């Protein structure tokens, strides 16, 4: 393996080139994606300041869009420290157990929450409720994963 082809921190793209090429392509794709999201937000909201809406949404989604593009474009085999068989590692088993447990908890909490709202006759808006469900799912999964990791030590 030559120095040029050695695994690196940021890896190289599936289409070849250096890490710099991959990062540039990821940034360019991220700009396009965040620009599209900004445009969509501007059109759907149809507010008083469309350009401001576009700019704010585009700027705040750019980091995530660029990272997502990097994740899609990178060749895993070129990443330093990447495992050859991640599916056989214990971390994959932890992930599956934590995800399975979190799914069950979401069903339980969601079901009880719906029942409670029905009894109380309370109505809520979709955005905060769905956001709460996602936040709960992430926290639950994280806690379960960390517990499995701790008990394995």
């Amino acid at each position, binding site marked *: 393996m030559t120095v040029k082809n050695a695994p690196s921190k940021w890896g190289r793209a599936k289409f070849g080139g250096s890490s710099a090429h991959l990062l540039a392509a990821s940034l360019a794709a991220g700009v396009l994606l965040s620009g599209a999201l900004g445009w969509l937000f501007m059109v759907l909201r149809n507010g008083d300041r469309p350009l401001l809406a576009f700019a704010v949404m585009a700027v705040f989604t750019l980091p995530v869009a660029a990272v997502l593009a990097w994740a899609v474009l990178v060749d895993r085999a070129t990443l330093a420290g990447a*495992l050859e*068989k991640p599916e*056989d*590692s*214990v*971390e994959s088993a932890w992930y599956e157990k934590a995800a399975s447990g979190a799914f069950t908890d979401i069903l339980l909490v969601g079901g009880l929450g719906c029942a409670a709202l029905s009894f109380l006759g309370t109505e809520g808006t979709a955005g905060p409720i769905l956001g709460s469900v996602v936040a709960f799912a992430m926290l639950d999964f994280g806690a379960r994963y960390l517990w499995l990791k701790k*008990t*394995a030590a």
Partner: protein
Amino acid sequence: MENTLTSRRSELGWSQQRLADELGVSRQTIISIEKGRYDPSLPLAFRLAAVFHCRIEDLFTPGHAPGK
């Protein structure tokens, strides 16, 4: 499951990281298998047997159930 992974690895003079790199898995995977807290997948068990030039049955044995 009980296993003889630790002793066989020591016979080769390998570290856990060395064995993990050989198998393409994380060091934590080797730790968990050796402590009996994680049963490897069948492909991984076959790779382990190949690394130690033995059969899977020589590496892993069923653990005793409580009360038996």
